[in-house]
């Protein structure tokens, strides 16, 4: 066991911190607030390209695809520092498609997409969930029908976050309605500006945006398919598992607690509230549980680094982290009391009034990207070998 970072790791962390300090400006933060739900502003695009130029996106990928074969731990450090600096570039969302493209894509797809993903020029929105279901993903109804050299797509996706700013949609569609449901699905890499695609915003409680995406006679060349026809389920589920690992997610779960901890130490109101021993006990409890979230992530990374695809450990992260986040919103709200309900605009509001927003948005973590119930199914069946029920 080795729970320490090497000197190289520490040097790299410092490099990231220095970069963020130099490049994340007041103007950038103002733009992020301004552009919420409207896509990516010019400063955000500029920053992502700069990060891409540094070679930090997908740095652990093979060199031939634009990566640097870098240590996965360095990638973890990069993601951790990015989220810690509250840079809301959801890099995790688009790099998670890269492993699938690398393992299943054609040479032309690898050559086109991977370097562009690395440079931040290509970003994917995930076209999985449909109005009829997300958890039972394999029941999806969107159809892709072959017509000459093309596929014609008709159907609808929903909760397609980031579609407003993505360059492509990573689309799961049914290519064989007669096979068992898992065996008739294919994945397509579809430019989001293809005629026939309509995006409609869905506004969330926290003031954020997700989307519905409609496909009406959308024609794409056959070369847009990823891997073999009807193999999409298997290509996608592997990528989904790996996509749940990484600091990006872990840190999203614990950042609320870390910021509250900072507030408790450094803000006069925070210190006043910490005079109560019961409040301190609650904070200490959250601290302990946040460490479990961190260690679960490091465990998954340690396994992936050894070439093991974790059978259940990533699902544990995805149960523990989101439930920790929801619990921390509850605890923090009961420590801050009436101050916690204040939105941006009040001088009395801690953290620029971000707490109520995070209180209502925390719920997304326990169902977005696979509900905690489905994760528990996976832990029990894949991890512990418990049998499927007779239906």
């Amino acid at each position, binding site marked *: *066991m*080795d*729970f*320490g*970072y*090497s000197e190289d*790791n520490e040097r790299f962390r410092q490099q990231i911190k220095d970069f963020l300090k130099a490049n994340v400006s007041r103007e950038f933060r103002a733009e992020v607030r301004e552009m919420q739900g409207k896509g990516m502003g010019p400063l955000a695009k500029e920053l992502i390209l700069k990060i891409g130029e540094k070679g930090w996106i997908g740095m652990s990928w093979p060199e031939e695809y634009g990566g640097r074969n870098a240590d996965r*731990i360095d990638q973890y450090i990069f993601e951790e520092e990015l989220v810690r600096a509250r840079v809301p570039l959801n890099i995790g969302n688009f790099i998670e498609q890269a492993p699938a493209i690398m393992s299943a894509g054609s040479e032309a797809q690898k050559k086109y997409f991977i370097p562009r993903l690395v440079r931040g020029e290509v970003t994917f929105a995930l076209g999985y969930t449909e109005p009829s279901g997300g958890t039972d993903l394999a029941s999806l109804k969107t159809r892709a029908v072959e017509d000459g050299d093309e596929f014609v797509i008709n159907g609808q996706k929903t909760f397609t976050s980031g579609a407003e700013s993505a360059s492509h949609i990573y689309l799961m569609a049914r290519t064989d309605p007669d096979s068992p449901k898992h065996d008739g699905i294919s994945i397509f890499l579809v430019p989001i500006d293809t005629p026939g695609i309509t995006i409609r915003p869905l506004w969330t409680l926290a003031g954020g945006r997700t989307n519905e995406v409609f496909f009406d006679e959308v024609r794409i060349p056959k070369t847009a398919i990823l891997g073999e026809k009807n193999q999409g389920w298997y290509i996608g589920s592997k990528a989904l598992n790996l996509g749940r690992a990484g600091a990006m997610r872990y840190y999203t779960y614990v950042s609320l607690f870390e910021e509250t*901890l900072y507030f*408790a*130490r450094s803000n006069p109101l925070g*210190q*006043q509230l*910490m*005079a109560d*021993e019961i409040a*301190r*006990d609650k*904070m*200490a*409890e959250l*601290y*302990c*549980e946040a*460490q*479990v979230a961190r*260690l*679960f992530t*490091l*465990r998954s*990374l*340690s*396994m992936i*680094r*050894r070439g093991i695809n974790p059978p*259940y*450990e990533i*699902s*544990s992260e995805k*149960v*523990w982290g989101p439930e920790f986040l929801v619990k921390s919103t509850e605890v923090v709200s009961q420590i801050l009391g009436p101050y916690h309900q204040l939105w941006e605009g009040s001088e009395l509001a801690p953290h620029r009034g971000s707490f109520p927003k995070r209180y209502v948005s925390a719920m997304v973590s326990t169902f977005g990207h696979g509900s905690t*119930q489905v*994760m*528990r*199914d996976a*832990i*029990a*069946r894949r*991890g*512990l*070998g*418990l*049998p*499927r*029920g*007779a239906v």
Partner: protein
Amino acid sequence: MDVLLNDDEELLRDQARAFLIKESPTALVREVEAGSKDYDAALWKKAAELGWLGITFPELYGGTPAPFSDLGLLFEEMGRGMAPIPIHPTLVAALTINEIGSAQQKESLLPAVIGGYKMLSWAWFEHGGDIDLASVQLAAKVEGDCLRLSGNKLFVDGFQQADQCLVVCRSQSGSTGNEGITLVLVDTDSEGLSHSRLPTLAGDIQDELCFDDVAVPLGNVIGQLHEGGEAAVAMFERAVILNCAMMVGASHKAIEMTFEYAKEREAFGQPIGSFQAIQHMCANMVTWVDGATLLTHEALWKLSQGLPASKEISTAKAFCNERCPAALREGNQIHAGIAQIKEYDLQLWYRRVAAWSMRMGTSIQHRRIVAREIDIVPK
């Protein structure tokens, strides 16, 4: 950074596990618990022969230099196998002797401990069960070339088997907190020292000690007179993390038994493990115990590196104290009726994990330390 066990660690774990499956069967655990003997002498001898009592100790005294985490992994297996031997109290005392004892003390004590000829105990806690050194009030007065001890100690582990007990006492009257603390090795048959066994949930051997003007030669002071505060805290912390390791090891075994049970036990025509309600309980159990394990390993690793680990140790203990028994309670619920039956083995682990969670500091007390370590206590 690789938080998994390396090859050597896996080998150590596998060997210890295989040995204890063979040498510490539940029949033996039950026999010792029933009271025919205080511990299993044959198992103690074999543990010594395997070198387990010398892990992390200098070769000079017959030990095997190894990282402290190796000892932690061994204690996980001791917990898993419920080994009925006083290895925890003996090594907690011996590690402190090794840390701050004089060369002469080490030479006269450690080879005998490592060889399995001498058992030790440690006496730290007093009435109230506090884990802060301020609670140590057992008075030690210097008189000539002796310390004279008066007062009480509670929850003293393995005292009855031990030849000597490392006692934490307050040697400067009126001192507070970590000041004026002395560690002294007391013969368990000293005149004026009486003890009475406390009946416990886990059936282990704990005593209340009563010191009635017990004279101990100053030569038995371990470390510096009046300046043992830091060493007393370090002794406590090592005891705590090895206790966590035992809890984690025992918990893994109990939840594995539960998963196997859920696969075999049938109801309504199918294994109960195929019901989602049971599956989700199992998923929680493994998540909690895995979390407890990782926290324990991180603290062990920090200690191995000589890094400050108070925060990590108390984090692990606070979490283990709550989540390990919770996982075993779920295990009981899945087993249902049979879980309460004495002759069914599950209860052996359940009572131990429960009892271990109640000792060496509650989750509330350890979170108090965490709160201090994360700097949220107002100045």
